């Protein structure tokens, strides 16, 4: 059976090993969510624009991102960015760019579904009022669409937070890496990985309960 020894885990160890990783994971999640929603919305508008070139480009981008394993996407960016810009960049920055680009593809599909969920009557009404495309989108459709999308955004953010652990592939210092290093430095990997699992579970589980609560609050009654 297991012989767990958690005595090494005190505040000092937590703040010097784990906290750094946790902060990076959270920061990566927040930045990628905001950037992903921003670029995802642009991609979604491209896919819905009806202009063949824009639709084509956005569709290819989204489908490519979605059909490659995230680990490979992380490796690709880590390989390509230095080739393209000529200087090596750190794992942290590379991971951030990767996750924004990767999440944009997923948020694109969410935003697209959200825009479609707003009844066409809303668009017709806006056009009948004399609004142009950007007014219709920014004043009528997107505000309603985003409200419908909040719960799915949150679910995707939880998935994203879990996915940030994959930066392990390029050695960035995230929450998992923090526990990984503690486990190796102190020779007690079992406790470290168990605690990592518990930590991720507590964060993701409470976030998913919070998402459910939000869902019950923001739903537009039809």
């Amino acid at each position, binding site marked *: *059976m*297991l012989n767990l020894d958690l005595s090494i885990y005190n505040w000092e160890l937590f703040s010097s090993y784990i906290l750094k990783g946790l902060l990076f994971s959270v920061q990566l999640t927040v930045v990628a969510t905001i950037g992903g929603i921003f670029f995802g919305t642009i991609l979604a508008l491209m896919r819905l624009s009806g202009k063949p070139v824009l639709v084509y480009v956005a569709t290819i981008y989204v489908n490519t991102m979605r*059909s*490659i*394993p*995230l*680990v*490979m996407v992380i*490796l*690709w960016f880590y*390989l*390509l960015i230095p*080739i393209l810009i000529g200087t090596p960049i750190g794992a942290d920055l590379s991971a951030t760019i990767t996750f924004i680009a990767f999440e944009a593809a997923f948020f694109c599909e969410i935003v697209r579904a959200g825009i479609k969920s707003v009844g066409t009557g809303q668009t017709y009404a806006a056009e009948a009022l004399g609004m142009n495309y950007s007014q219709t989108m920014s004043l009528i459709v997107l505000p309603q669409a985003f409200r419908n999308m909040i719960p799915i955004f949150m679910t995707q953010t*939880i998935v994203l937070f*879990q*996915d940030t*652990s*994959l930066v*392990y*592939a390029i050695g960035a210092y995230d929450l*998992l890496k923090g526990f*990984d290093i503690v*486990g190796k430095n102190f020779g007690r*990997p*079992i406790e470290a*990985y*168990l605690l*990592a*699992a518990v930590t*991720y*579970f507590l964060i*993701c*589980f409470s976030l*998913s309960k919070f998402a459910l609560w939000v869902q019950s609050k923001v739903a537009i009654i039809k």
Partner: protein
Amino acid sequence: MDWGVFCKDTITGEASEHCLSSIFQFGKDADPTYLDWLLKAWGWTLLVAVLSLFIALVLGTIMGTLRTIPANVKGGKWLAGFATAWVEVFRNIPVLVQVFVWYHVVPNIFPIMKGLPAYWLVCFALGFYSSARMAEQVRAGIQSLSSGQRMAALALGLSTYQSYRYVILPTAFRIIIPPLTSECMNLIKNTSVAFAVSVPELTLFAMQAQEETSRGVEIYLAVTLLYAFSAFGVNRVMTLIEKRVAIPGARSNLLAIH
């Protein structure tokens, strides 16, 4: 780009006469080329995917079904609660962390697993992780059926088990084939985390071959295409299955009329 890298010998780094040496020389210990290594890695990826898919389908079906067990069945509440806990645990921990737990922790709890090779532990990790997602799909499929199906089955005198086995699950599974398809494709993609415990699959090949040859673009392209190709293959197979098992004329009637 220099695709000749795949014909290079993995040991000497020199161009080999045969691009595919080991494939045609089973048993003989020919020095393999990077192409051999790539194909072998692909084999590992597919093996891990198939084994974990099997585990995920079995566990996912059981847990998804248990979550819909009516409360009036004896012990139904406990079973449903257990299945709910199962789903919450396995979908709220990142798959990579689960791989590490299976690799470093589980064999210490169950000494019998100490002899298991790493790829089996990865299969368990991926299988359990995916089973939580599949359970949710099975549950959604069952709940999308009209409640009349269950009542009709019970009215015919079928037991709870029989009503699931012969009435509810056959129809529910037909409904959830599309989401199951994308989950299977996700599973193929998720096998890439096996690199973390040194299973010699595609991603580990990509990392190591890139380091050895410095021809990252060619190596990564080949690996990426094989992943996409595998996922596409799964998609085709599932579409084929969907067509084969479709009940003629019944497709639209299966969905609940609430």
